[in-house]
């Protein structure tokens, strides 16, 4: 409970702190979620996307 009290005092007690908390967590959550979901997506579509086959053609262009 003591820790919870500190958390409350630090992040939620004053309005500006609360606002900052909301914005930062929103930002962090968005980054985390997007990254995870993009990983899931790339896994579902392994080998189908341009980034999976790009290497062949970039190297080919260099050799010529």
């Amino acid at each position, binding site marked *: 409970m003591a820790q919870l009290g500190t958390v409350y005092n630090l992040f939620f007690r004053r309005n500006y702190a609360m606002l900052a908390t909301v914005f930062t967590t929103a930002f962090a959550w968005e980054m985390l*979620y*997007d990254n995870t*979901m*993009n990983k*899931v*997506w790339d896994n*579902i*579509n392994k080998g*189908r*996307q*341009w980034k*999976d*086959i*790009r290497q062949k*053609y*970039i190297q080919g*262009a260099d050799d010529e």
Partner: protein
Amino acid sequence: MFARSGLRSTQRVFAGARNGAINVTKRAASTSSGAEASPVRLNIAAAASTAVAIGSIAWYYHLYGPTAHAMTPAEEGLHATKYPWVHQQWFKTFDHQALRRGFQVYREVCAACHSLQRVPYRAFVGTILTVDEAKAMAEENEYDTEPNDQGEIEKRPGKLSDYLPAPYKNDEAARFANNGALPPDLSLMVKARHGGCDYIFSLLTGYPDEPPAGAQVGAGLNFNPYFPGTGIAMARVLYDDLVDYEDGTRASTSQMAKDVTEFLNWAAEPEMDDRKRTGLKVLVVTSILFAATVWVKRYKWAYLKSRKIAYAPPKDANVQHRQ
């Protein structure tokens, strides 16, 4: 309710007809007061009204029931077979290797007649071609410049922002070169036809070696059962090993048709990959939120649902009865 009682009364009529008149007379006597309804007349009335009801339903169906087909099946064209396109699954992107092959087929075959005017070279970068490849391809064509100081319009090599050039100067030239038929622009073809990918694939692979016996094929037309009307001005264009795929895939007719169809789907919906990825994120988030709302609702309602309201009758002594 109504249906059940209605049914019961018809059963009664039929039972009456089956068991002879006596039953009916009894019941009629018990229900109707006075006026004697002859059982025979009752049966005739029931039979007649049933016949009228069935007749009017039949007449109504005859008049409005069947869909009116303005066209014969041949004019509609054969329904395209449904193929299990992987890129049409909910969470699958285009197969970009197939797009690359399909673009090759478009460039080497279809581009001789069909434009793809809504697709700029920049759209290929990072999806089908590398920047250098796209730039080189754009530079192979000439485009008009802005008017210079003297108002002259000159030619310049293409840039990434230019759109794919059309094979003909204008529609009239295109018609003139194709026996009067205009090869339509393919940019949005997948969205523009019923059946989309299935239709285009069926069309490209559906040319029989010779038209079936009895089929009418107009002059300059080719028989294709999938094309509405069955006579299409485009002849069969894809034959085995027509193109030489750079990735070594064997260029069978159906392989090329599949690749070019997927490519045309990309041309019509270049945003598909991103759209589906965003869709996946939205679905996951909304289902979490939905589960949360359901849980909160149950939590808040739990005590309302589980309480019991009991009525404790007041003690007699406290009640004043008005007489």
